[in-house]
């Protein structure tokens, strides 16, 4: 399976760069998931499909109104924020006290519904947004940096930092962190944990919607696109530590690197298997992840 014998240092560097670029996107996707998981202990199996909705929102705003994807970010954020809160309020909140099986299955149901609604409304066709403001590549010697990917990565970092500041510096943000750490104590201190749940679900969805907007600048847009991203996000959240924002950020980058380098040194066909292996190994050896408690 070891495919290369001579590796040029430039090739390796290129792979590392590619890995980082994917990794930053993964980070943003995973941060939303870990927030939801940390606050209300529910795995959002529809997370990848929220990404898909973000991507399609960006696509249609571009196709119908000529809005460049970068400018549709705030719209994606708001749309998915509302969608997330509604899904929490009318669906998820009702199973929180139900049996574990129902909690597991309900977000699968939402996932299947969303992805097939997309098929129904927009057909299963693959779509692409043609390059607009951002296009082309930067070249540093032998290393090629795709501009859309780089902008998306920077955007992802900025968004993550914004979230981080929101959580640490604002009153609402701190309430969210408090609920995440110790739900009962938060309740006792007068925090309305139901409202926090709803807010967190909304923010989690909004974040991955923004990731979708960034991703749509260079990735194929189609109804089933969320599936794999959603599954990879689980590994990232586990590696980073359930509920840890910083952890998800770092783990996202790591997984991006492992996936790219793993595919480079071993068979590219196995790269996703390697990502899933990460989940299993993390959960067996260090269940609290890198930065979790």
């Amino acid at each position: 399976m070891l495919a290369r014998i001579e590796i040029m240092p430039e090739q390796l560097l290129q792979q590392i760069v590619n890995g980082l670029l994917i990794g930053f996107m993964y980070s943003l996707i995973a941060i939303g998931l870990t927030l939801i998981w940390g606050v209300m202990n529910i795995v959002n199996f529809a997370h990848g499909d929220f990404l898909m909705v973000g991507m399609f929102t960006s696509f249609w705003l571009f196709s119908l109104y000529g809005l460049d994807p970068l400018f549709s970010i705030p719209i994606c954020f708001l749309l998915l924020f509302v969608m997330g809160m509604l899904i929490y309020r009318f669906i998820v909140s009702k199973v929180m006290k139900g049996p574990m099986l129902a909690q597991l299955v309900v977000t699968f149901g939402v996932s299947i519904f969303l992805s097939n609604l997309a098929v129904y409304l927009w057909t299963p066709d693959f779509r692409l947004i043609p390059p607009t403001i951002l296009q082309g590549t930067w070249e540093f010697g032998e290393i090629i940096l795709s501009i859309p990917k780089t902008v998306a990565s920077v955007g992802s970092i900025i968004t993550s930092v914004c979230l981080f500041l929101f959580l640490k510096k604002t009153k609402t943000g701190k309430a969210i962190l408090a609920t995440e750490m110790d739900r009962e104590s938060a309740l006792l201190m007068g925090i309305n944990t139901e409202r926090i749940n709803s807010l967190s679900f909304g923010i989690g969805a909004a974040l991955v919607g923004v990731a979708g907007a960034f991703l749509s600048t260079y990735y194929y847009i189609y109804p089933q696109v969320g599936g794999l991203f959603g599954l990879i996000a689980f590994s990232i959240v586990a590696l980073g530590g359930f509920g840890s924002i910083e952890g998800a950020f770092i783990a996202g980058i790591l997984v991006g690197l492992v996936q790219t380098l793993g595919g480079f040194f071993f068979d590219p066909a196995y790269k996703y298997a390697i990502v899933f292996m990460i989940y299993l190994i993390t959960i067996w050896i260090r269940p609290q992840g890198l930065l979790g408690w």
Partner: protein
Amino acid sequence: MTVGLAVMVMLLIFPLVVTQIFPLQIMILVFMYAMLGVAWNIMGGYAGMFSFGQAAFFGIGAYTSSYLLMAFHVNPWFGLIAGGVVAALVAAAIGYPCSNLRGHYFAIASIAFAEIVRVYFNNWTLVNAAEGISLPMLDESFTNFMFHNSKVPYYYIMLAFLLLALVVCHFVATSKMGYYFRAIKESHDVAEVLGVNVVRYRLIAIMVSAFLSAMAGTFYAQYVLYIDPESVMLLAISIQIVLLSMLGGAGSVMGPVIGAAVLIPIAEVTRVWLGHQGTGVDMLIYGFLITIISVYQPQGVWGILSRIGNRIK
């Protein structure tokens, strides 16, 4: 149990009365998914290990018997047993390190495991990787587990397999094992404090579940005569198994059977009428139903029936 007897009789004479192929195919699928649901139920509904990766065992069963047939001309009935054993061993190997995992963590581990298996088989040249295995054509006979002219023998074989699974499940449910599984489902602490070796019983649950799922896999291979990772190891299959078990009632012997009897015909019929244009309407309704059921009736049909039964008492 006169209802049960009546149903049994109807099932036995069904192929003699209904001769169109489509209903027969649906019934065979119902039996197969019912068996997969019963197998899932043993580890999920009873012992609380909610696996979303049963397709891996289904596929391992299908591949083991098919590969043995293709490469070594091993009779499919022996292949059936071999497939079960291999699946059980793999189940033990993955189940052991996961002994402490519960709820969401276990669910995701099962998905991770099943996807790893699928990716591996998709690239494993020994079993033709993504191309899959076309089963060699044998003369039609029961010993060869192959029938070319009619699907009726498959109907009876699958029904017999389902009955076997039900007997196993019934035995589990009404024995010491069943009580211990249910204790484990509640919490590991409760089980341990009553003297239950949690690791051992969890392994038993997973291995039995895997063996039965693999049997269904071998049946599928002998029925369809072609398998590939995309048709026997798909996540969608695993999810379907969980859904129909929940719909019928997880934690009861007959629950998955009811769930399969309701869900599979609907899924097949809508797929043919609505789905073949690729509009996704059938799956849309499906997703909607799952969501509604999780929220409003997570105990499934069996839960409704039990409540009615209790009120009558």
